[in-house]
Structure formats: structure tokens, C-alpha cells
């Protein structure tokens, strides 16, 4: 204890007189899904403008908002990346700390794929199959809920092969997991009329049924590192993995995606909305920082420019799926108005 105090004392004396001003550099936190895109824009921005390259931390969407909403001081981040829209609880947290004016910027879409090794079986799942394979509880033969005991894909759907269900996916802290649960599991869950009816009467129970992933060895939490999942798929042809489209795009030599509801996970299908498991990506800008942090408005302008997030923009090469040009133009003109105010 004494030692700690001694160090603290030393530390204090070392740093007296140093300047803490950080206003000349943009700080960005948030989603690990937006991180690969945000960093590319930041690097170009740093190279092509007189401003410093923004610093980007990959904290996860929720963790990002916690930091972002901590206050309006210049030592708080100016931008928070998110792989989902901001929650009302997060808006409330921001407001409580004085962060009242935040600007939402939608950058494009990301698809979530279920992939397996290239030389393995070509799967085609319906979202119902996915729900029946991965949910904690499923409707039994008489319609009542029973614990999920499906062992092979054939148990789920007789058209599928007799292979053990083994799915590697992200942990609950991940935005990818949230989106997968909401888009794939829930839509499969809703195909059962009695569960769908439950949504109106008992929303909590409905959520519990549709959003709970089984905890036996059929679903394996594989951590946040998607490269690791890709490597494990290559080693185990029976396994499937859940990750973002950008990883599929970059690793198409070793893994391939399953069709979902008959739709292949391709750039075009995600872009036009026919692929069912896709989600919008956002970042949020602290309006109070626009005139305090150098280059913040210019950074936002670079991010929403055609060059970056347009149809042929440099982010599309990295696997970001751009919005349709109509949607982009309406949203972006609003954003540009807001940042230039």
C-alpha cells in the first residue's frame, strides 16, 4: 500500500506540467464489426488531410457507448461505432451525463453468414432449421416446449445430412451474436404460430424462447476472433461458423457460406435485402465536439463520401455493403447538414 502511494507520488511529479490537451486528434470507440471499416477511413483521412489520424479502439458496441456517454469533455471519445442502432437506455445514459445532441450516421450493411469448409457439404438452411438446431427450447411433437435434444442436422430437417450439429459462434457480448439471434433465430422462431401469438401476450416469455441459444455442445462459443473460427472450420469439415460477411469475402478460398432461406450470401443479395441475416452499421458523433475537436466534421464527411461508402467506394473492397444510392443520398445530406451547422 505504502509502495503504491510512493509510486503514485512519483507518477504525479513526473507528469506535472505535461499538457493533456487531446483536441487535435479524434478518438473513436465501439463495435469490432465497424472497426475494420473505420480504421481504413481514418488512415486515409490522416494521410490526405492535415489532421492527425484518428485513434480507434475496438471495445464492442455496448462498451463503446459507455465510454462515449461518459461526458462532453475532450478526453471522452467523439465518435462511437455501433453494429446496431443506439438503445434508449444508452440515450438516457448519455443525456444524464450531458451528452444531449448525438448525430446518427448509417454507413452500410453487414451480412452474417453461417459458413463451413470449402470442401464440405453445401448447406441450405431455413431460419426455422437454424432455430430448431440452436434454440435452448423447441416445440415438441405435441406443440409444448421441450428441451432441445436435436443431435444431427437430419433430426432438424430430414432434407439435411446426418452430420452432428456443431456451430462455432461469437460470445453474448458480441454485436454479431445479438444480430444473429434477432435476425436468424427469431425469424425461425416466429414460424411457429403459437410462439408468434405469445409475442402479444407475454413478450418476456417470447423473447426467452426465441433468443436463448442452447448451452450443450451443439453451439460453441469461439471468442471474438473470427480468424480463429475460420481456421477451426478448415480443420473440422463438420463444423459451421457464424461470422460477418467481410471475413467470408476475405477467406473465400477456404470457407463458403450456407444458403439461408434459399438465398446465397453474396454482395448483391445482402445489398438488395434479399439475404435475411443482414444488419445496418452505424456510427454516432458527439455534436458538442464538432467545434472542439479538429477535423471531426471533415472526418464524417470523408466517411459518408461516395469515395468511401459509395457503391464503388474503397470500403466495398473491404466487404462493407453499401446502401442503395437513394437511401444514401437522403441520409447523408442530413448528416452533412448536421455536422456543418
Amino acid at each position: 500500500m505504502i509502495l503504491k502511494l510512493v509510486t503514485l507520488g512519483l507518477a504525479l511529479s513526473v507528469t506535472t506540467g505535461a499538457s493533456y490537451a487531446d483536441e487535435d486528434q479524434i478518438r473513436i470507440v465501439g463495435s469490432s464489426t465497424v472497426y475494420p471499416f473505420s480504421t481504413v477511413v481514418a488512415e486515409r483521412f490522416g494521410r490526405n488531410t492535415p489532421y492527425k489520424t484518428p485513434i480507434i479502439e475496438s471495445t464492442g458496441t455496448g462498451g463503446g457507448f459507455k465510454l462515449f456517454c461518459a461526458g462532453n469533455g475532450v478526453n471522452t471519445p467523439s465518435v462511437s461505432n455501433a453494429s446496431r442502432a443506439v438503445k434508449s437506455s444508452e440515450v438516457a445514459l448519455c443525456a444524464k451525463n450531458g451528452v444531449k445532441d448525438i448525430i446518427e450516421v448509417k454507413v452500410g450493411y453487414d451480412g452474417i453468414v453461417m459458413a463451413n469448409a470449402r470442401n464440405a457439404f453445401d448447406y441450405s438452411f431455413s431460419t426455422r432449421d437454424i432455430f430448431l438446431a440452436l434454440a435452448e427450447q423447441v416445440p415438441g411433437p405435441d406443440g409444448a416446449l421441450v428441451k432441445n435434444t436435436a443431435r444431427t442436422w437430419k433430426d432438424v430437417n430430414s432434407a439435411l445430412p446426418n452430420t452432428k450439429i456443431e456451430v462455432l459462434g461469437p460470445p453474448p457480448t458480441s454485436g454479431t451474436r445479438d444480430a444473429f439471434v434477432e435476425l436468424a433465430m427469431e425469424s425461425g422462431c416466429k414460424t411457429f404460430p403459437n410462439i408468434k401469438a405469445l409475442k402479444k401476450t407475454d413478450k418476456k416469455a417470447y423473447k426467452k424462447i426465441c433468443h436463448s441459444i442452447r448451452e450443450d455442445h451443439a453451439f460453441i462459443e469461439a471468442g471474438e476472433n473470427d480468424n480463429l473460427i475460420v481456421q477451426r472450420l478448415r480443420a473440422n469439415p463438420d463444423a459451421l461458423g457464424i461470422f460477418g460477411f467481410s471475413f467470408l469475402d476475405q477467406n473465400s478460398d477456404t470457407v463458403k457460406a450456407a444458403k439461408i432461406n434459399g438465398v446465397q450470401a453474396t454482395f448483391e443479395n445482402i445489398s438488395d435485402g434479399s439475404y435475411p441475416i443482414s444488419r445496418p452499421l452505424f456510427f454516432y458523433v458527439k455534436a458538442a465536439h464538432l467545434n472542439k475537436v479538429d477535423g471531426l466534421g471533415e472526418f464524417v464527411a470523408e466517411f459518408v463520401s461516395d469515395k468511401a461508402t459509395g457503391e464503388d467506394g474503397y470500403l466495398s473492397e473491404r466487404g462493407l455493403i453499401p446502401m442503395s444510392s437513394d437511401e444514401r443520398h437522403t441520409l447523408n445530406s442530413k448528416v452533412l447538414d448536421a455536422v456543418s451547422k
Partner: protein
Amino acid sequence: MTDQLKNSPLSAASVEGLGRRYRAEKRYRFIGFAAVAASLGFLAFLIIAIGFQGVGAFFKTDLRFDLDPAAVQDSGGDAFGLLRSTIRSNLEGASSRRAKRQAYGLVSSEAEEQMQALLDAAAETNTNPQVVWVSASAEVDLAVKAGIDALINAQDKDAGLTRLSDQQLRWIKTLEQNGAVRTRFNLGFLINGDSRDAERAGLGGAIMGSLFTLLICLVLSFFVGVMAAIYLEEFAPKNKWTSFLEININNLASVPSIIFGLLGLAVFLNAFGLARSSSLVGGMVLALMTLPTIIIASRVSLQAVPPSIREAALGLGATRIQAIFHHVVPLALPGMLTGAILGMARALGETAPLLMIGMVAFIADPPSSVMDPATALPVQVFLWSDSPERAFAEKTSGAILVLILFLILMNSVAILLRKKFEKKW
């Protein structure tokens, strides 16, 4: 049993089972040897596996394009336009919009700057450059390292062994036949800052960040640690209070490192308001972490100095502080330094505490002072291993090799110090 043993003066009890006892010793030796061999085997496997994957990171591919003197004259210093027209004129069939895009995709984003540098140099010396060497893009780099012919002849064209198109592969093949492809040592890998373009990403920023962090860590923890150890060992009374302190120091040495990160976040960032992501805060957090290690190592090496040295000094009229600082500490110093270096080596490999204080981040500009945002070597490994782009797998292994090299250097220095200055009593 031989006659010799039968007739020996040894008691029957000690002779009995002698063979069994010798066999036990043999067995023990064998097991010990196997344990050492297994651990060496694992280490060798790790280094060889990473070495194979990572050696490519130290080399990069350049492409040569012939310049048209007239185009250079007309360019008026516009490197971007000149680069694109040069690529078009060098590659056959780069005329449609799609083909042009593919042609431009062969070179790195660095190429424009290299072209600019060439134009600037030419303008200064008033010469007319004939050719330009530019960096290839990461995909081309990987393809050249894998062998273009193998990719072109691949049986399964759909397998997507490379993200390059057939057209792009044919262009590279033609360039290779004309001797316009070269592989050279990738100095940028050691001096550049981080980048999302694998071919220009480097460890320079991370190495600088690690150096700054370790410097702060060493300055803070070594002096405080050594002073604390001297006080505890030589001056402090031996009572309940000091043994309580000793237990706590030993405890701190084994606390998971992320806890120190949380402490740093609460104290250095939130209470003191120091700059997030700076190597100053990183060094302070790591200093807290290494402090107990240094105190323990320093106390052990002070204990190893024979009491006769102290007694002789005191007997000749030295005060206690003179006896300790003139005689005991110099003898204990090699052990203290060894402890400090081993502590530093551990600090060099830490990522967890740095996560909490924002050093795990994309930071492109290398730091120039301890107040600048910085990353560290293990952080860079962590970040690259998570990148979707294939070319970063090679860079990750390359970065691990550099990190291991630094660790080997530090540990060798520790052993050298011990060998050179250690006194045997």
C-alpha cells in the same frame, strides 16, 4: 550378484536391491530428460511454425513499370495521373473500366507516394527517369510468394485460391517474365506505423511504444523497487507489520495483470486525468505490475550477500548506510538487475492491462513522446490477428518473431549480467 559384491565389506542390506536402486535412478534420469526434450520440442515447434508463416512478412514485392518520357513531361508533377497512365500503358488490355480497376488494383496505395518521390527527385537533379518501381498490393504480394504459375494452373478455378482475377494473374505473369517483379527486404515492416493496408503496415509505432512504455516502467519500478527492498531487508524492524507487508507484496506479484489495468484506469486516467492511450500511463501501470517482482528479486539478492561483509564494514567504523550502500548493494546489484530485466521481459509481453487504458487501438502515427498515443508489440500482434485481410496472417507471425527476438535479447542480457558479475561465496 557378482562375487566381488559378495565378498565386499558392504552389509548385505545395502547390497540387496542395488540393481533396483540403480534402475530407479536410470528411470528418473530418463523421465527428466524426456520432460526437457518435450518442452524444447514444443518451443521448437512454435518457433518453426511461426517462423515459416512469418518469414514472408520481412519481404515484399515490387513491380517495375516503364515510364513514357513524354507522359512524364506532360504530367506536370501530377503523380496520381502519371501512375495510372503508366500502369495502363504497361499492361496489355487495360482499357475497359473493369480492366482498368483491376490494373490499378495491382499496386499498393503507397505507389502514388513512390511515384511522387521519383518525380521530385527527377525535378531536383533534372534527369528523366526511365522506370519506376512501386510496391505491389498485398494480394499480389501473396500471389507472387505462393507462385504465380501454381495459381494460374490451379485445377479448381472456382476455389478462389487468390482474390486476384485470371486477367490480373496473367499480367503479373507477363511482368515476371519481363523481370519487372522483384522481392526485396521489407524495411517498412520494422519502421512504418500501423496501417490497414497489409503491404505498408509496420511495427515501427509498436516498437517505439514498447520502448517508451518499458522506459517509464523501468525508471519507476527499478528505483522504487530497489529502495523498498533495501529498506525492508536492512532497516525495517522485523515485526508483525513488516511480515504483513511481505505477504501483501508476494500477493501483488501474483495478482492477474488485468487488475493493474483497472487500477490504472481508475487512478491514472479518471482521478489524475492523464492522457488515454499514452505510453506514460502504460508504463506506470506496468511499473505497478513489475514492482513486486523487483522487490522480491532484490530482497533475495540482498539476503545472498554474506553477513560477514556487513559485519566487517561495521567493524571498521562504517555507519549502517555506508556499509549497505558501499559494500552490500554493489554485490547484490547483478541479482537486482537480473530481476528487473526479467520483470521488464514480462511487462513487454503484456496486453491485458493495456486494454483498460486504451492502448489496444488503431494508432497509425508512431509516437514521438511518452504523452503521444501508442500501442505496444503484443498489442499489435493481437490487433493484426483479428484482421479479416488474409495478408495480415503473415504479418501477425512476423510480429511474433520480432517480439520473441526482443524477449530472447532481454533474457540473454539477464543471463550475461548474472554470469559476469555474480560472486560465488
